[in-house]
């Protein structure tokens, strides 16, 4: 039995070594913030292909390296809430401000007012500095050219155009349970109906048979529309222009009744391990230093800072469009109730 015993002994030793190995991993493979002084940790809600160039430019400008991981707005917020007592990151970057508004109630953020604070219009900043806007992102209608042509339609220019029978089962838009895009859309419908909730919900219920799929993420429907798997949809302009840039034949249009826009935010987390570095990123991101780079990297957000000029081709797209901001107070106060009603009456009638 010696061999068995020797085998078991070495096996036991190996297993006992597991925690040691864990320590070794800790020490060698995990870059601990304590060691790397000029490293900032960030959850980005912006997709990697936009966040990465921004953070590289930030490093060039300040020498501060940004470690980041990308999550959708819902995942990012769920994580920040789960990690509340011991935050893993310093800054929450990008994503619609209504996500940040939801986080204020959870006590997630450390108020901070960057130098740009005074220059920003009120709707681009939280009064106490819980969040600051870094960009603005209007909604648009996006339709597939071939679908429009085959059905003898024109690119939709009114909310009511989307009710046409030709669109039956051919629209894709975001699911209000997971997507800020959807919440902005629903509040847009409320706004164009004069905040008459019953009228707005009547419209959404009438639209329901034309909706093929409510997607998990705001941009989830852009590829199907690009491919013609869906005929049209309602998206943020940044996603719609990205689809067009990829080569898909789509048309962007605006409803004459008007459509809402949502600001994208940034915030410092309460209990952040590197608050000073986090503030530097917020200073940079809310200033023309970052927002002037959108055009260079073909990021089609509208800059939030008034000193940054709108890029000409983006300005051409927005020419003549009727765009209104969503009232943050009204939306914040009614969001949960409206979304619950949407789930009960529109999504699962």
């Amino acid at each position, binding site marked *: 039995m*010696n*061999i*068995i*015993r020797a*085998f*078991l*002994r070495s*096996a*036991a030793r*190996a*297993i*006992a070594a*597991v925690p040691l*190995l*864990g320590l070794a*991993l800790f020490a060698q*493979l*995990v870059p601990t913030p304590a060691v790397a002084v000029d490293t900032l*940790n960030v959850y980005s809600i912006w*997709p*990697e*292909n936009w966040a990465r160039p921004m953070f590289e430019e930030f490093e060039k400008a300040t020498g501060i390296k940004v470690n980041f*991981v*990308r999550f*959708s707005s*819902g995942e990012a*917020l769920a994580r920040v*809430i*789960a990690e509340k*007592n*011991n935050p*893993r*990151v310093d800054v929450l970057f990008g994503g619609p401000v209504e996500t940040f508004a*939801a986080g204020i109630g959870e006590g997630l953020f450390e108020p901070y007012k960057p130098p740009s604070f005074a220059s920003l219009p009120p709707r681009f900043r939280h009064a106490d500095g819980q969040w600051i806007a870094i960009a603005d992102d209007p909604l648009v209608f996006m339709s597939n050219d071939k679908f429009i042509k085959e059905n003898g339609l024109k690119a939709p220019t009114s909310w009511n155009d989307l009710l046409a029978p030709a669109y*039956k089962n051919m629209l894709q838009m975001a*699911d209000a*349970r*997971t*997507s800020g895009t959807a919440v902005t859309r629903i509040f847009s419908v409320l706004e164009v109906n004069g905040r008459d909730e019953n009228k707005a919900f009547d419209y959404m219920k009438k639209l329901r048979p034309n*909706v*093929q*799929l*409510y997607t998990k*993420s705001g941009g989830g429907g*852009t*590829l*199907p529309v*690009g*491919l*013609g*798997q*869906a*005929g049209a949809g309602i998206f943020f302009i940044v996603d719609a222009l990205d689809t067009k840039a*990829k*080569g*898909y*034949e789509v048309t962007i249009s605006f409803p004459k009744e008007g459509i809402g826009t949502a600001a994208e935010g940034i915030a410092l987390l309460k209990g952040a391990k590197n608050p000073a570095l986090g503030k530097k990123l917020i200073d940079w991101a809310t200033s023309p230093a970052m927002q002037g780079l959108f055009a260079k990297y073909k990021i089609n957000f509208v800059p939030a800072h008034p000193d940054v000029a709108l890029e000409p081709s983006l300005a051409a797209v927005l020419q003549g469009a009727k765009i209104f901001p969503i009232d943050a107070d009204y939306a914040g106060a009614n969001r949960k109730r409206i979304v619950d009603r949407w*789930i009960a009456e529109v*999504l*699962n009638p």
Partner: protein
Amino acid sequence: MNATGRWKAATTGMRNDPAVAAAVFVLWALLALFVVYPLAMLLARVLTDNGAFTTAGLAAVLSDRHQIRAFGNSLLLALMVGTAGTVLGFLFAFTAARGRLPRWLLTAIDVAVLLPLVSPPFTTAIAMIFSFGPRGLITYDLLGLKGVTVYGLTSTFFSEVLTFFPIAYLTLRPLLAAIDSNVEGMAFSLGASRWRVFRTVTLPLTIPGLANAFLLLFAASLADFATPLILAGNQFPVLPTQAYLQITGLFDLRGGAALSFALLLPALAVFLLQRYWVSRRYYVTITGKGAGQTPFDSISPAMRAVLLAACAAVALVVVYFYVLLLYASLVVALGANHAFTLQHYRTIFSDGLKAIRDTLIIAALAMPLGGLYGILLGYLVTKKSFVGRRTMELVSMINYALPGTIVGIAYLIAFNEPPLELTGTALIIIACYIFRYGPTGIRATVALLQQIDKSLEEASQGLGAGSGVTFRRVTLPLIMPAFFAGLGVVFIRSMTAISATIFLVSISWTLITVKILENITELSLGPAAAFSVLVVAIVFAVIAIIGRVLHLFRAPGAMPMTSLLGG
């Protein structure tokens, strides 16, 4: 032996062997830490509100009619996938075992069948989206159909069957191969028709295997999160995706955990059925005594042609999906610009390099530890007697039987704060893999050790070999396949799993599968396809190496691969 006697024998056994005692102690500590503790923390979160006990959170979610519908949908889908997948798996297994196919054709079938099993999640789902629907390659371009909907029960069902039927195939094929064809031959020579032989001899002998395959598929479908997330649409919500949405969309951790717990009941029932009922009813066992094989043609040439055609049709669908995937990884933008490019591969090897590196490091560390954990625990519970042996075996299976979403959330809750601050490290992902997929190695070890007739070891000793030589030359080679199988499964799952680990990735450690999901939601289809192709290539390479190693031990390697479950 009465209870005291058994206790005494057990404790004496431990006292006699300090190495065993130490190993048992360490294993219990690890199980308590990585299986029991997270689950207890999750339960505490579900059942308390500001420190007070309450079932209100649970009740609110479970009485919601939409969630009840999702629960019903989950069961319906699992039932359908279980049935259809078992039938399809049997078709392939029967054709492979009885069809007298040439070697190259068998290999071709194996490859086609393994593809969906070793792929990252979403791959079939995405291919489905491209192929069906209003402008699908098949529905529109090929068949000219209009207004077809791709989202819903039908396509989720179709996609899951294609993804999971290989489990049934791998369960049934060794079983059919092991049925002594002499028995069938005898029935045939006694005048029974081929159909009668099949119906009265072959099929009854396969029934336990069919039941086993059905339960495995049922569990796999029940826990599947990736396919419904893409394909189920709004008309057919299922529970794992609802739990995910509850947490990530409505920021309701308690509700999400409660929904996961609703999945626990059927998952556990299936697991216990499979473990304690079906596995006891296997009629075919491997003994040392060989029997001469009389050739017997159990299927007629016409039947053989029909079976082959059916298999070829299914294999063709699988291959078509993967060709589409490969194609998507090599063109600028599928559906818009079909110019050839290597750009997506450049992207994944630059921007995605960290994910690839992290995934490989984690898989490489989890692999040997998972394999070792499997044989050690398997060996101890089979060959050593100590207190709580059965309990240990059962506890070790918990993370394996639970849907991944539950395990992931439980780890996130349990390990975010001191004293056990593991979130953000690779260790939390590695531990998740070891305790979630290591059980395959445990089961393989137990099964192999139980098959070793005591007479084999006795014979060895009777012929003059010492116990050391016997262990080294008889026992060890017999459990080595289990070691490599366990190791292989942990590796494959480390490369392809997402349901648990989507909650465990961090700033420092990310995974390829999470990148794929992100790319899909950001409509970067090319990089998603390129990542998937890379994963399939790596996994196939590793399987080939493990197969080679197993071959050295001249032992059947297919058997333990049947448990490549989860998602």
